């Protein structure tokens, strides 16, 4: 059983943060909210999303599992105007999702969850540095790096205690330093890793500019990116594997 009413903005934000990595996903319809975990086919980027029941206008579920084609569902959600509500109801018999936006009714065929790529286990990584910054600073860093290169280095200078972003291109360089004062918080630790901008650009699209973003970093280790949406009732954690420079 699943029946919920949610604002178009909240649903779209949730779907967008997953669709940057995969085309299809499994959605767990838990009693206390939705949960999605997915990893891209290359096993480079991972997303772990939860949307609490309190983010919905009304929410009723008992632990079902559905498989959806994300771009389909995004298209439908995109039919709603800002401020409109979207009503979702699962038909257990036909395995279809009934979607209502004002007068518009849409019946979405679901995908067999078993046919969707297996959900990843969330790796338990010991990442020594933690950086908390505003979404707009992540956006600024990614945008600047993209002007000169296809990859970006994120690191922490332990001695001088700042977080930095480096991008080296064919001819041009980008360097950005954010000190304790520019950041919301910084826990210094040995950290320097290179990441593909292809992935980071996509992840950045899902990060609201006015949100707090927490980065966990290590040396040639994956980055963990955590942020909230829907007034903190939705949480996204991305994990992105680095490009290895040393061996």
């Amino acid at each position: 059983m699943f029946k919920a009413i949610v604002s178009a903005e909240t649903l779209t934000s949730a779907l967008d943060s997953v669709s940057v990595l995969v085309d299809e996903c499994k959605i767990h319809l838990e009693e206390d909210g939705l949960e999605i975990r997915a990893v891209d086919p290359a096993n480079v980027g991972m997303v772990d999303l939860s949307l609490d029941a309190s983010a919905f206008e009304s929410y009723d579920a008992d632990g079902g599992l559905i498989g959806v084609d994300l771009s389909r569902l995004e298209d439908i959600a995109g039919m709603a105007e800002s401020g409109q509500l979207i009503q979702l109801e699962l038909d257990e018999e036909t395995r279809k999702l009934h979607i209502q936006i004002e007068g518009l009714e849409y019946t979405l065929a679901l995908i067999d969850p078993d046919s969707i790529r297996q959900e990843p286990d969330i790796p338990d990584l010991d990442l020594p540095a933690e950086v908390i910054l505003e979404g707009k600073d992540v956006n600024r860093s990614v945008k600047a790096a993209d002007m000169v290169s296809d990859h970006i280095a994120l690191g922490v200078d332990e001695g001088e205690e700042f977080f930095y972003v480096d991008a080296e291109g064919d001819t041009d360089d980008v360097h950005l330093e954010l000190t304790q004062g520019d950041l919301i918080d910084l826990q210094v630790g040995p950290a320097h890793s290179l990441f593909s901008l292809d992935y980071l650009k996509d992840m950045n699209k899902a990060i609201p500019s006015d949100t707090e973003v927490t980065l966990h970093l290590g040396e040639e280790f994956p980055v963990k990116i955590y942020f909230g949406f829907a007034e903190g009732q939705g949480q996204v954690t991305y994990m992105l594997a680095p490009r290895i420079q040393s061996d």
Partner: protein
Amino acid sequence: MRLDDYIEELEPDEEAERRRLAKEKSYAITDHLEEFERNFEQSLSGDSLVGSTAPSIFVGRSNYPDIPVGLLSPVGDEDAAEEYVTDGNWYQQGYDIPDVLQRRTGLLNSNKRANVDSPSIASRLTPNVHDAWDGFVGVQREVAIAGRPVDLEIGLDDTPDLGLDAGTDVATPRGPRANARNAELRENPYVPKPVKKTLEDDDWQAQGAMTFLYRRGFDVYDINSILSAGALGEAKQRRLVPTRWSITAVDDTVGQYLRGRIRNEPSVDEVQVWANEYMGNRYWVVLAPGNWEFELVEMKAPGSIWNPNPGDDVWLQSASEGYEGRSSYVEETAGAYYAARLGVLEYLESIGRQAKCLVLREVSDDYWAPVGVWQVRESVRNAFDGTYGEAETFHDAVAEISTQLPVSHARLRRKSELAAGLQANLSSFTGQE
């Protein structure tokens, strides 16, 4: 073999000697053009070329969609027509630049303009190339799908222009051209069975049909010609495709098919360096363990064909793709990217492995005329003959090769996505490989 020993054994002296000989031979081209002119006059009867034979076609792209469609025929050397067809044999026979230019300039391109969708007036009622078998375009399409050179008679509007065009890296240099009035078959062309199948099935998407032909043993050169003539794919999608575009389309399509084949294969288990040198181009192919990733970096020496000023710096270009391929158009390296990628994928598919692969192409000033993108394809395909050098790590291999390159390791790392860092996957950090 250790990489440093491997590099030492590449015997640069022998290469230099071969290049010197190649340069001397280039004078032969001038003589060749004079001979062509004589042959041409002999073959001309009235304003028709009688007893001509066409092994291949050329579809231009100027003024698209009203493009020049041409029949290529070796005037005065009809018996050797097969040898004028660009394919892997040219590499196997060790053609050098002058050899290629002789073949090119020995082919008369008799062409006529046609619309890519409705090549003749008759077929404008059904504006589609897929059933155009009459007129000049019809004859040209018969030649494209035929398994052997076809005897025909071409009516010319004027005498040929013997000017030798420089061409580009993808398309090959062209020989003499003439405007054709008409063309007629002098025999019933032989069409191989699989080609008939793709021709007749007009519900079959082009990608699938191309892959089918490739699996039936047709090389990309044959498929290219068939695609170019609009002789495969869904009926409503069929149209004439400029040769330059179809070469890249076929390399890309077959490459995607092969990439799919190795997607779930285990990775190579060591870092291997393969090298090859052909026509003033040196290739280094580095394979390393991990999921598929590919990059071509081209270094064009000052004084080489696209970087003509001898005082300039080495010109660098690169393009790369990850495990799932590219989502955007290749802006740098163009057709060479897909040709090199095909060569690597064919090898990986043959050994049932995937790998991270960096191809470095060094173009020296000995590459004084572009011969076409087949040279890249065949050089990379054949780089996997013989032995390879082993290195401890990918970055060790790149550092060691850098000592042989015309650019510094630092500059290479700035330009090359793979030399800067190899994409790891998440499972290597969780031990759940």
